[in-house]
């Protein structure tokens, strides 16, 4: 089933949680809503589920307007950040809940329920836990039970609110890969909320970036990472050094280095901020081509890469460079040495007035 969000707004008193959001989610897609806390991503998920009522705008499931439909009738699967398992019920009864509360006419027989619950518990690989209570399970197990429970009502849409947020790093990684495989298996239109960019980029088909209740960018993971549409996305997705820059005739000047900025071809003169990924900086010998000169404060070796934490000699600003291990070993860099850096790639966002080329 596809989900269409049309011009949806929601405020909580003075706080604008969603500001005229438009988004279409294709059938069978796994979409990540990514953004810092308070950016509106969870509110949108709850609006889709029917747990919040939007102040403005419509929600469509396929072509059907679901805006005024009650939560109960929407048949969505919802997985909560803190699992929200029914603490006084066994795992089996938790999963069976959605079937047991159906109206008498639609309610399956006990035998059918039993079969179905065991099927779901097998799907999440926890059939042996049926008789336990939620407090006897680990976080990862609870989340998988919560997922099985959500799937029991055969939802047309699966919504997950920070599904791995409360888990430790290792379990988190395993579980998100497992979720991706599960999604490929059952092909259910799914939306999940996360503030973890790595999670969003690894798991999803498409990433929707939120900030201040607005969508900043929508795209496949590679696209949003390599071609961030706004300065917010650049800063939020992965680390980026920010440096003052001046754009003249389509060339960005960052310190003494010059980088062609084709997206600013028409601009004669403007100032802005250059965003440079740590791995897009390289150490150069010749200071006349360097973007900046900096002192090495820390060297952090992270397996195959080495991260240098620097302070700009000119203004003391903290900066970061990432080098492959081999490159680092070639160079003679130690804590305290002064190095010159040039940017291989940068993206400049113009701030303030720009003198534009007159079009003939």
């Amino acid at each position, binding site marked *: 089933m596809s989900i269409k969000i049309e011009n949806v707004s929601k405020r909580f008193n003075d706080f604008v949680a969603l500001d005229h959001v438009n988004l279409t989610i294709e059938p069978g897609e796994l979409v990540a809503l990514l953004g810092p806390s308070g950016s509106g991503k969870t509110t949108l998920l709850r609006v889709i*589920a*029917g*747990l919040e009522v939007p102040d403005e705008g419509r929600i469509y499931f396929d072509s059907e307007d679901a805006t005024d439909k009650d*939560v*109960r009738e929407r*048949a*969505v*699967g*919802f997985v*909560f950040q*803190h699992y*929200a*398992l*029914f*603490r*006084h019920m066994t795992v089996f009864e938790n999963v069976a*809940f*959605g079937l047991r*509360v*159906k109206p008498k006419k639609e309610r399956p027989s006990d035998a059918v329920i039993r079969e179905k619950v065991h099927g779901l518990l097998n799907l999440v690989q926890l059939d042996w836990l049926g008789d336990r209570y939620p*407090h006897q399970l680990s976080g990862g197990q609870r989340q998988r039970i919560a997922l099985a*429970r*959500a799937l*029991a*009502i055969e939802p047309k849409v699966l919504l997950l609110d920070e599904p791995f947020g409360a888990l430790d790093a290792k379990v988190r990684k395993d579980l998100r890969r497992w979720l991706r495989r599960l999604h490929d298996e059952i092909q259910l239109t799914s939306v999940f909320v996360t503030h973890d960019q790595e999670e969003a980029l690894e798991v999803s088909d498409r990433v929707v970036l939120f900030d201040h209740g607005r969508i900043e960018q929508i795209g496949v993971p590679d696209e949003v990472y390599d071609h961030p549409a706004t300065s917010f996305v650049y800063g939020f997705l992965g680390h980026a050094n920010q440096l003052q820059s001046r754009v003249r005739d389509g060339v960005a000047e960052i310190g003494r280095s010059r980088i062609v900025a084709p997206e600013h071809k028409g601009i004669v003169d403007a100032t802005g901020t250059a965003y440079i990924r740590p791995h897009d900086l390289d150490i150069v010998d010749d200071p006349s081509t360097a973007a900046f000169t900096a002192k090495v404060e820390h060297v952090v070796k992270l397996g195959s890469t080495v991260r240098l934490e620097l302070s700009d000699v000119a203004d003391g600003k903290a900066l970061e460079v990432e080098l492959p291990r081999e490159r680092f070993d070639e160079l003679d860099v130690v804590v305290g040495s002064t190095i010159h850096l040039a940017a291989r790639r940068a993206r400049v966002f113009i701030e303030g007035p720009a003198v534009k080329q007159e079009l003939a």
Partner: protein
Amino acid sequence: MSAVLEKGAPKASAPAMRPRATARAGPQRSASWKAALLPIVLTTIALLYVAVALLVPLAAVFVEAFRKGVEHYFTSISDPEAWSAIRLTFTAAAIAVPANLVFGIAAAWAIAKFDFRGKALLITLIDLPFSVSPVVSGLVYVLMFGLQGWFGPWLAEHDIKIIFAVPGIVLATIFVTFPFVARELIPLMQAQGREEEEAAVVLGASGWQTLWRVTLPNVKWGLLYGVILCNARAMGEFGAVSVVSGHIRGSTNTLPLHVEILYNEYNFAAAFACASLLAFLALVTLVIKTVVERRFLKSQR
């Protein structure tokens, strides 16, 4: 106690440590001796206090009740007037407790799981009977439903008796026991949050199904605890009930009021016999309360 010793000893002995090895033992021993004494003194004070203020009076009730023998005891409590007082006490509790149970669940549910205007006001109002003197609560009903009260003439016209009758006693009892269940449930439900209810609704449960299958099972021990406290107060209430009762023997006397009447008539043995019933009820309540409390704390974990 050992924890107190370990903590107390080094601190107290520290200044005397260096000068002479022989002098060291003295102050240290006296310090630890003092530290050991403190819990004993405190415990003794507490126990003595409990004995004088609680145990002796409680024992006195039973001793006085049986002073004229077992036979006299049973005659006293099976006296028709006593029997009528017992019945009325149970009737009032049997109406007040379920009424406050329903109200308490509804109020706690509304306060903990929904946002609405006037929520803070409702929370404050629920506490009102705790802060108002029971006598005042009784007087309020007299002012409203008494012969000279606001609704008095209308009630008289329709031949409805509230004050100096059973309905007044029930109303007064409801009023003073009003907060118990709600007060017990509100913090509990607030702590449990709304996520489980939201999960239930998303899975297709109706409001009633959510209440019966999710909300109530989660608070059952807290609920039972509130009911026990509510019942204890309902059966023991004196002040408010005394104002609205009219003390008509065999008709509008509850057990606590009956005890007072007997006592004022210098019928001490009978007064204590009836009082022993109330004391016995209190003891039973205490046992149930302890058991429930234990289960409650266990379920919280």
